[in-house]
């Protein structure tokens, strides 16, 4: 076993003549338990040691990801040699200089030792619907970080379950995501999923038209996750953003505020520092409907004439935890405000015709409940939300007080979302 140290590798790269180097060694142990039809289908453990190394000479830079640790010296030499003959990147403006001070973070070590199979079994047992399927993860990472300018270490752990309960003609989805074992509640996730499955029996075919949509936290988080590339400066610069050219402009209802927060205690993607070593922070993205910031690393910030938001990705800046601010209403308030609408509880397959315009469609799945004159009156199926993301954000009309942290297979980044009421959204259905 090769003894690895991020600072040693950075020093070694410097001795080979690079100007800047970053090394992050992640030692990860994860457990996964998958289940379906009320049975455990497979239980797994993943053990990985990854070294992500970045080296730059002038404007030339390259990154390499190593799992074959025995070849680390050879690959480092290969990468440094490559730098001399590769093309310059005019958009590379260096990495953050520091030095930085990092705050302390708590990491719940008990997650790494959790009885994943037992916790899964409890969730299965809690299901009151005919059947349940899903996955439970425990993740634990030790991070050893060094750059030419700074050093740090971090420990991260989280636990999450995603489950879908099904009846003969209906289903519901529930999740629980937590940075601590004590706040994890797999039983509640299973109960939530079961409850939705039972509430949506006998769905009728949905009808096309314009509806007010009340999104549950799971559904709205999943929808937003599908468009989060739009806030990364890298993708904005690629023409792959419906926020392109809109900094300082109104892009959503004044009721809508969204931030990235890399340091919140209970955020499952919280971290002490980003991949350049910059201490993470809270960055407003949309404040009361106005687009305030994209997410940046040092290079994209320089290009856009601003400061890094501590969201490196050495290549593309990426979110950590996304938080949509709550409003002042209860869920019952929001339901009561809907005359002709639908409560949508989950969605998937959000796809764009054109990333710049934001024209998209997405397919609600699981329980879709019909709301008429402020009351839930039945369930529907087979509908598609076919609209425009900017129009949808502009039509946000109400948000519940409390948020839930959502992260699952179709929601790549953790999003804290409240219930969100959006007026006048286009629904289509199959024509044949």
């Amino acid at each position, binding site marked *: 076993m090769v003894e690895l140290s991020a600072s040693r590798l950075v020093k070694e790269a410097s001795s080979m003549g690079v100007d800047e180097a970053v090394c992050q060694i992640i030692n990860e142990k994860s457990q996964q338990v998958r289940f379906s039809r009320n049975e455990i289908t497979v239980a797994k453990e993943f053990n990985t040691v990854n070294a992500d190394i970045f080296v730059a000479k002038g404007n030339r830079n*390259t*990154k390499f990801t190593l799992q074959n640790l025995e070849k680390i010296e050879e690959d480092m030499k290969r990468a440094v040699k490559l730098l001399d003959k590769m093309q310059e990147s005019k958009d590379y403006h260096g990495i953050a200089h520091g030095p930085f001070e990092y705050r302390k973070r708590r990491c719940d070590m008990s997650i790494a030792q959790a009885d994943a199979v037992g916790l899964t079994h409890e969730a299965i047992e809690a299901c009151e619907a005919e059947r349940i399927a899903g996955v439970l993860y425990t993740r634990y990472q030790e991070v050893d970080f060094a750059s030419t300018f700074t050093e740090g270490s971090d420990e991260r752990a989280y636990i999450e379950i995603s489950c879908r309960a099904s009846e003969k003609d209906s289903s519901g989805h529930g999740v629980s995501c937590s940075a601590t074992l004590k706040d994890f509640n797999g039983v509640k996730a299973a109960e939530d999923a079961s409850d939705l499955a039972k509430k949506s029996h006998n769905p009728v075919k949905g009808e096309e038209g314009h509806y007010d949509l009340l999104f549950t936290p799971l559904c709205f988080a999943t929808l937003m996750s599908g468009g989060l590339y739009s806030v990364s400066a890298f993708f904005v610069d690629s023409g792959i953003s419906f926020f392109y050219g809109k900094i300082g402009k109104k892009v959503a209802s004044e009721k809508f505020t969204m931030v990235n927060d890399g340091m919140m205690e209970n955020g499952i993607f919280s971290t002490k520092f980003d991949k350049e070593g910059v201490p993470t922070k809270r960055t407003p993205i949309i404040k009361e409907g106005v687009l305030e910031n994209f997410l940046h690393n040092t290079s994209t910030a320089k290009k856009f004439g601003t400061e890094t938001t501590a969201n490196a990705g050495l290549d593309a800046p990426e979110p950590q935890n996304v938080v949509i601010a709550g409003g002042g209403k209860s869920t019952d308030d929001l339901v009561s405000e809907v005359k002709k609408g639908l409560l949508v509880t989950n969605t998937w397959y959000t796809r764009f015709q054109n990333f710049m315009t934001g024209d998209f469609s997405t397919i609600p799945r699981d329980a879709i409940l019909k709301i008429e004159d402020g009351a839930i009156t039945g369930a529907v199926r087979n509908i*598609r939300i076919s609209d425009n993301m900017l129009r949808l954000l502009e039509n946000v009309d109400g948000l519940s007080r409390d948020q839930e942290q959502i992260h699952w297979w179709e929601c790549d980044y953790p999003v804290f979302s409240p219930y969100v009421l959006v007026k006048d959204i286009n629904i289509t259905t199959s024509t044949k």
Partner: protein
Amino acid sequence: MDENLAHYALQQSKADYAEARMEELRGLQAVVKNGNLDIYQLASQHGLSVRVIIDGGLGFASTNTLDKESINHVVEKAQKLARASAARNKEKIGLSDEKMHTASYEIPQKKNLEDIDRSQELLDLNNHLQQEKGLVFQLYQYTDEDRTKYYINTEGAEIRSRIPRIGLLAILTVIESNNSEQCQLQYGGIGGWETFQGLNLFERLPEEVRVLYRILKEGVKAPSEPVSIIVGPEVAGITAHESCGHPLEADRILGREAAQAGESFVNPTMIGTTIGSELVNIAEDPTIEGSYGYYLYDDEGIKARKRMLIKEGKINEFLSNRETGYALNGGSNGAARAMAFDREPIVRMANTYFCAGDYTQDELIEETKKGVLMKSFTEWNIDDTRFNQRYIGREAYLIENGEIGPPVVRPILEVTTTGFYSSVDAVADEIVLYAGTCGKGDPVQGAPTSMGGPYMRLKDIRLGGVRG
């Protein structure tokens, strides 16, 4: 790769069944954005996983620390997890009885990838398109890998393979008079740099840009009344993949992917059920030479073969691995694929396509009084039982009296699976395959696949979805 470590893993196992898979990979990802080399990332990976069955419980563990101590740990852990699962389950997981093979195969690189300045090639491609009218943004993501696998199990299988693979995703944005159109194009194949050169991107990409520009300048609305739709091989391919290949994956049918990629409108009793016209035949074949989804043995050591999923409009065969083959009592047809050493083999497609008919492409158009020719697509999606789908045309044209007319702006084909398949009334005679990456599994495993078919005509389709 030290294959002895895989044998050591099996020797340590006390399971009813055990398999070990080792992989080694070297690769590159390069991203060129608007004429600038933004990302140049080398990958060097290796590792080993062990999958075991004990008392009907399935356990899996992986490591990239390849020494005996780590391997002892993963074997013990996989067994412990299998026992813990078995203790909670009422039904036992099993594997179908299959013939085991010893084999070795390799795809050569005629022009070695590492000898090529691949980032310069991408920059040259970017520069080649620079002068195209209206083209404002160019983004190219190139990937290649040279992957070696070694697989053994306790039933005697031993498979070695080495497959180099290249892929390119291009996202191009054209703006004219404040309106924009975009395309996301994916290309891929197996082999060395000669495969990339064979994609003819210096000819194909400028043509794609011109198509977008023409739509912005001359595009007309799709007809609102029901008309004939002629779909091109790209649209036929995505349809075959999404609404035939996926719903006929046996693990979906059994609910194993329910909370992630979903289930299926098909149930185990539906073999022989008619879901389309007699002209609909859909095949799945991993063994097509040069194809993006190519393999000769799957990741359970089963010999790959062509599968006829739909025959004359009837469901003919599901895609199965050994686990679903055991559960459904039908055996495996070699559909188990794992996309990395630390991923379990699950049921996957390889190359899925509508089979050819006896029309020519010209005949399809000449016979059409009023319709739309939808050659390619932009946005697409489908529900999680694979029944309600939508494909929005990228390159599409009006057809009137057998003649191709002006481009149509983003026609929307929003139909059910049976609605689509039962509407097929003519099929052309030439198949084209397109590369794609299929997402499934948890953690997600992006599988290289291809999909395609011939030009096909669908009768009486109302475009545009049913808009409110």
